[in-house]
């Protein structure tokens, strides 16, 4: 079992004829993801790799192929438009990999999406994977293993680190969701936690956060009251200086808010096992599962 994506997912790739979009579309197809369409304005009518039909608009792709999930590899200047195009076409889940989107663009996207049924993951994220069934994004497929741990993270390579630790210790994952490192994004830690809490195939969770914002604190407060499953967590950025943007636009401590110490305290107060270092994310969860921390 899994959340959001599985064998039945019908994926459209926005930006499929670009270098990055094409490369990752192929990687996803090799993993077994059902890529039913591509979209690049002006390239409608072509076939990607001789088999995937390319359309000018997401609207046509949706009409013709009943695609229900979109992944976006469109350059930053056009990515916000790409998200809204997919939402307008009625695509249920939109995953935006693109990094470097102006935050005001995302502000408008978020406001436009309010009240609509589509969900957004990202932007500036690695994507989502249900191991053994469906990979949508840029993560290396082979480090994953089907299983029952739900993984939620704001960071790409730090997610790989956690997943690899789990897999190396024999623990598989139900679904791994990279929610992205931007200050205004789609799905939050809390949204993902709720999905995993309701998923019968997920027995525990790893939640990876970083400095900046209050998303981890909000998830912690909800977990304390409502979550029925064991959770381990790690927060990156304990040593980051305040006022500096650490790569992710969201990773900045300002005005005393969003510090690692504050987040770790909130997580611990919610009964979550917090990994002391990034090297022990999986071990911390395993210890929690055995009831020894």
């Amino acid at each position, binding site marked *: 079992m899994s959340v959001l994506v599985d064998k039945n997912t019908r994926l459209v790739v926005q930006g499929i004829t670009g270098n990055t979009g094409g490369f990752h579309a192929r990687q996803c197809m090799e993993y077994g993801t059902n890529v039913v369409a591509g979209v690049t304005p002006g390239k409608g009518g072509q076939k990607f790799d001789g088999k995937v039909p390319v359309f000018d608009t997401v609207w046509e792709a949706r009409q013709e192929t009943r695609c229900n999930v979109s992944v976006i590899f469109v350059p930053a200047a056009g990515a916000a438009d790409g998200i809204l195009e997919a939402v307008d076409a009625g695509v249920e889940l939109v995953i935006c990999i693109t990094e470097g989107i*102006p935050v005001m663009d995302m502000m408008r996207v978020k406001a436009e999406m309010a009240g609509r049924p589509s969900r957004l993951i990202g932007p500036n994220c690695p994507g989502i994977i249900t191991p053994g069934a469906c990979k949508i994004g840029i993560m290396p497929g082979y480090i994953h293993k089907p299983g029952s741990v739900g993984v939620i993270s704001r960071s790409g390579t730090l997610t790989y680190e956690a997943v690899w630790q789990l897999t190396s210790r024999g623990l598989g994952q139900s679904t791994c969701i990279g929610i992205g490192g931007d200050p205004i994004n789609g799905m939050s830690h809390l949204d993902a936690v709720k999905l995993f809490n309701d998923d019968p195939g997920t027995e525990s969770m790893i939640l990876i956060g970083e400095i900046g914002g209050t998303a981890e604190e909000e998830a912690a407060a909800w977990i304390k009251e409502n979550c029925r499953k064991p959770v381990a967590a790690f927060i990156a950025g304990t040593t980051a200086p305040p006022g500096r943007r650490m*790569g992710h636009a969201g990773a900045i401590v300002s005005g005393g808010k969003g510090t690692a110490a504050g987040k770790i305290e909130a997580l611990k107060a919610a009964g979550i096992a917090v990994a002391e270092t990034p090297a022990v994310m999986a071990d911390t969860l395993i210890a929690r599962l055995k009831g020894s921390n």
Partner: protein
Amino acid sequence: MNIHEYQAKELLQKFGVATPRGKAASTPEEAEQAARELGTDNLVIKAQVHAGGRGKGTFANGFKGGVHLCKSPEEVRDVASKMLGQTLVTHQTGPAGRVVNKVLVAESVDIAREIYFAILLDRATAGPIVVASTEGGVEIEAVAEKSPEKILREKIHPLAGLQAFQTRKLAKQLGFEGTQAKAAAKLFEGLYRTFLACDCSMVEVNPLVVTPEGQVLALDAKFNFDDNALYRHPELAAMRDIAEEDPREVEASKHGLNYIGLDGNIACLVNGAGLAMATMDIIKSYGGSPANFLDVGGSATGDQVTEAFKILISDDKVKAILVNIFGGIMKCDVIAQGIIDAVKAVNLPVPLVARLEGTNMEAGKKLLAESGLAVITAGDLADAAEKVVKAAGGGK
């Protein structure tokens, strides 16, 4: 990206925000001329550097204060000659200080009342928000702590924008009446237009002043721009002053590397911002101290890795280097080749610990092993941290 005070004022004036009249000058003669043009004996001269605490700062030549009140254009010229080309040290510049290349010459205004007014992007509401207070001219964090009831917050709808009634309400809440209230509302509206048009993540006016004559003016303004949006603002990008930035960071940005200099002695090269932060954290938890944050991104080339190495070892505090790569899109053999090329090019002066995991990890490790270089390899993150801290001569 940060801009100078004189640039901030020019920007505000473009959007109809009232500020005291003034002009930037690069020579004492220009400063004197600017003072004459203002046609007043109430003058102020301010050193232009990207750092706070200028008024209490000291120049390397012994001259005190980066902000001076003057009574004549001749006096302005004299003070300018003591500031220009000199190094100003304030509590924010660090001991090295900053060279003053420009001064702002402006009319000095008397102040009846000081207000704090800022517009910023609020993550929680995913939209702009006004934060304002009648307690201006001081650190707003201190006000928020001591008297939180004095902080006003007004949410702005992300699509509808700042409404006229909101500017009237804010003016009233901040104690403005009559024509002053009108002037204040106009200023707020101008600030919002600046915020929006320039893709700001924050515009902060502190203080916004009311003069004894009842003028409402933005006395000082601080801008934070969204770096991701600079591509559509060439006029803002042109305001960048690289002399104000860490030269290592400037060099890194030229090569598409995300680098932030820190004070420790263990240099790190990592792919991905989250993993880069986590790598700094684990170095610290093993008793070491990171010299930098460096994210080479998801698709770095061998050349970028070489450039990254050059920047890392140009820091003479560095006693050891840790390379931590979790290959996804990034292939470990590409990184390994980049390391080998870099080490050959720069003659590595300090120990190097490498931890490679993920895509093409075996090929990468083989390349390093066969290169004959004295690279210390590490199996996992904990092993890497332990080894690099030891190599730097530290540890618990």
